[in-house]
């Protein structure tokens, strides 16, 4: 299936030496819980969408990574998705997660079953143990996440979910993004390229918006607050005015 997805990527020329600098949505394995199908196809689909829509290089076959593995700190991004309580993290996992965050890494927490919310609550609980000094806060609607590539109004995933997202902000950077929108669910693909899961409410636009939001997250990881630079401000204000 991954081979088929990879074929969707139209860009073939080298975008970096190897894949070392490319966007890589690594999936976290914690407490022995792995990301299962159909959402296990979402990271590859995310990379493909990113490569097709932007100039960013991305890894087509993202790896799984344990929170207690030293490789966690080999790249600055990881996705932690699930639908059930993650249970208590081991000391090694907590230490690994803390090191990753303190090094400046970005962690996307994606609740695959936001109606239930068990996963989201359990991750927040564990994060509070790892980073007690930095509780989650609501990101402002003007946050750079909503304009890193596409101009979007709100977070969208497979489900419409809440209009805002919570994040753990350290310094000036939102380092842990807490989604309750099942973003990976919206990105999941079948072998033939079709979507694995219907959106709620079901609409083509919502899926497109979810993909756009995923692209924005990838761009945030790659460029941080680039679009907050003063040089972009007049353009973005004009664009937003046009959109209204």
């Amino acid at each position, binding site marked *: 299936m991954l081979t088929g997805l990879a074929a969707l990527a*139209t*860009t073939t*020329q*080298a*975008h*970096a*030496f*190897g*894949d*070392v*600098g*490319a*966007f890589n949505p690594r999936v976290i394995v914690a407490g022995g819980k792995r990301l299962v199908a159909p959402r296990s196809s979402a990271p590859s689909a995310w990379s493909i969408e990113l490569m*097709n*829509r*932007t*100039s*960013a*290089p991305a890894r087509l076959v993202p790896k799984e990574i344990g929170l207690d593995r*030293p*490789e966690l*700190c*080999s*790249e*600055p991004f990881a996705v932690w998705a699930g639908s059930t309580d993650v249970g208590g993290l081991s000391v090694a996992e907590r230490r690994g997660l803390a*090191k990753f965050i303190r*090094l*400046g890494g970005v962690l996307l927490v994606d609740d695959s079953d936001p109606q239930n919310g068990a996963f989201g609550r359990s991750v927040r609980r564990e994060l509070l143990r790892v980073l007690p000094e930095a509780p989650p806060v609501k990101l402002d609607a003007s946050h750079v996440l909503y*304009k*890193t*590539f*596409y*101009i979007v109004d709100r977070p969208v995933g497979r489900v419409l979910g809440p209009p805002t997202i919570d994040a753990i902000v350290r310094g000036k*950077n939102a380092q842990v993004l807490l989604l309750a929108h099942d973003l990976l669910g919206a990105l999941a693909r079948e072998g033939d390229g079709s979507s694995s899961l219907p959106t709620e409410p079901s609409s083509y636009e919502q899926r*497109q918006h979810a*993909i756009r939001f995923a692209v924005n997250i990838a*761009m945030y*990881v*790659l*460029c*941080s*607050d*680039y*679009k907050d*630079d003063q*040089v*972009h401000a007049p*353009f*973005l204000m004009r*664009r937003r005015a*046009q*959109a209204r």
Partner: protein
Amino acid sequence: MSERGLSVADGVSGALLVTLAALLLCWLVLAIWEGRTRRAPSWVPLSGVLSALLLAGAVLRPTLVTTRGTDLFPKVVVLMDRSWRLGLKAGERTRDDVAQAALGDLRKQLKQSRLEVLGFGEGPAAPLVDDDSAAPRPTDSDLTSALRGLLEAPGERPKSIVVVSDGRLSSPSESSTPEALRALGERLGAPINTIRVAESSPPDASIRRAATAGAAVAHQKLALELTIGCSGGLACNELPVTVEELLHGEPPALLAQGSAKVLGGVATVELPFTLDRAGRRLVRVKLQAPDGDRVPENDTRILTFDVTRERVRVLHVAGRPTYDVRALRMWLKADESIDLIAFFILRTNTDSTQVSDDSELSLIPFPVDELFTEHLPSFDAVILQDIDAVEYKLERHLPALARYVRAGGGLIMVGGPSAFMGGGYAGSPLAEVLPITLPEQGPPFDMAPFEPRITDAGRAAPTLRGVRELLGDRLPLMQGSSTLGPARPGSIVLWEHPDRRAGASAMPMLSLGESGDGRSIALGVDGTHLLEWSELGERGAGRAYGALWEGLVGWLMRDPRYESARLELTHECRAGAPVALSITRLPGAAVDVKVTLQRLGGLRGEPTLGLLTSKGGQPLPEKQLRMEGSVETVTVPLGVLDEDGYSATVRIGSAPPARFDFACERGGPAFADSRPDPQLLERIAEQTGGVSLGARDVATLKAPPATRVASQRVSAPLLPAWLWALLAAVSIGAHWYARRRAGLL
């Protein structure tokens, strides 16, 4: 020489003398009263006075004192004005020549004095040696400090001071009050005589003063205020002035021009200009003097500005967003001293953004034309990270970018598939300012993983010290490398490829180089973020990445922390006088030191070496020496230079070279005001009790009186003590007898 005098016997106290004198006076008064009231014959009081005197002689026993000794000649200090200004003409001769002739006359005239000849200029006066032509001459004439030095010096104070000068003193100034001038001599307790070596001003238009309000800050307008003087009867009206910056390998760049309208012999003109590059910048100010100007040396000034930055303004342009781009941006943004302007290519022409129109995107057009024409000079450094020059229309701006580097800008090209050869830079003007050559044929990059190897220069370079302290000689495994050619002459390779070759040597992966006034860095990999995000990077807690880029940007911006040596002149450089360079290196093992000297403002490619000379006077392309063990500072003579701006480059061992720009002026601030000030010298003499003389009238100067110093003292009694006693007894007896005869008893 001997002297004679009277004294009294030893042991006679002052109180006894006073008592005796009072008794004698009483006796005398009594004798006169007695003579008048009791009509005593005259011999009665006379015998009384005589007996009183002989009694006093018996008590005091007078002695004859003979003193032998010598006359000590007074100490006279001659303060010779040593300012470079005395090189100006006073008639046919220089003021220096006149001063030396006056000194000769003083030596003859003050033969009966102990003459101490000191030179004054800046700080306390120092003994004047006969042949001091090689000694650096001061700019100022600070008489106040010289006099204070005399006051504070131990030993005998001078009885008189003679100042030989043209009167254009920096202290006291011409506006000093009489009280201030009087205080100069009062403190020393000696009169100050002045010898005027020049009386009249030469016909001269000059830049008397060049000053700026506040410090020079890169990219900020600086107002240069010039005071133009016109004296000596020279006819001045409107005098054109130009201000230009002296650059490396480039013709001087015009910064400002204007004209000074001279009224009453003085004009003030303000010329605002902007210096874009930080560090030592040399600015030449030229005054177009009218015909008849007799002092052309002060028509030009070469000013040195230590230009600082409020913040380092960096342009970061990346061809695509990657983790390497992210790491660099985050490091640049985190540094408060950096003002970052970033442009990343987020969409290529082949990308399908899936939008109905671009208003749904936050993308803005890459303002390549605006950036690389209008705004380019405002940046201190440009970082081109894996961006294709052809695809993104940067190609047509590469000549301007190369000029920007030669004019003092900093450039870092970071590797990747679209950098160097892969980005169409080979054969371009920009390739000429990179520290490496770029092959025009062959694969633009290689995807074989490798660990860069640190060269000897890399181990010696302060630029990499931070990384090596954290990681030692290990570097992360890179996933590929740009194809780079051999390093250019004068460039330094810090990292090299362990397997790939560039000509006869290993392919450089990280190189530093200078081009004209600017510096450039070629980094042939796109994975330095692995210094932060890798197992090895984690060993240094991710700090190795920041240490690398801090070193690279610091070196690019000439941060002294990343220079291999500290350079300074031993004294101000003046055209026609020898000058030397002081080199202080970092402590360490013995190293070879190579010094080269170039003239600024010459065209690129113009041979500028050969300014250094050997002992035999032969020109040398470079001077080589060796610093051993604990020797950390050496002085290298640079010889005698003409008026111009110069750049000395010093390479310590295999470390990247350090550079020092300096100006050599013919007159400099010393010649700025050619007018002598005889009135000030006259006022100083008048207020301190001295005399002021022209240089030809030194023969009329009077020496202070000598001081007698006794070497032998012999005292002998006038009469023996027994004889005094006998005479006193006889005279008292005679007086008693006289009184009886006169019926007074």
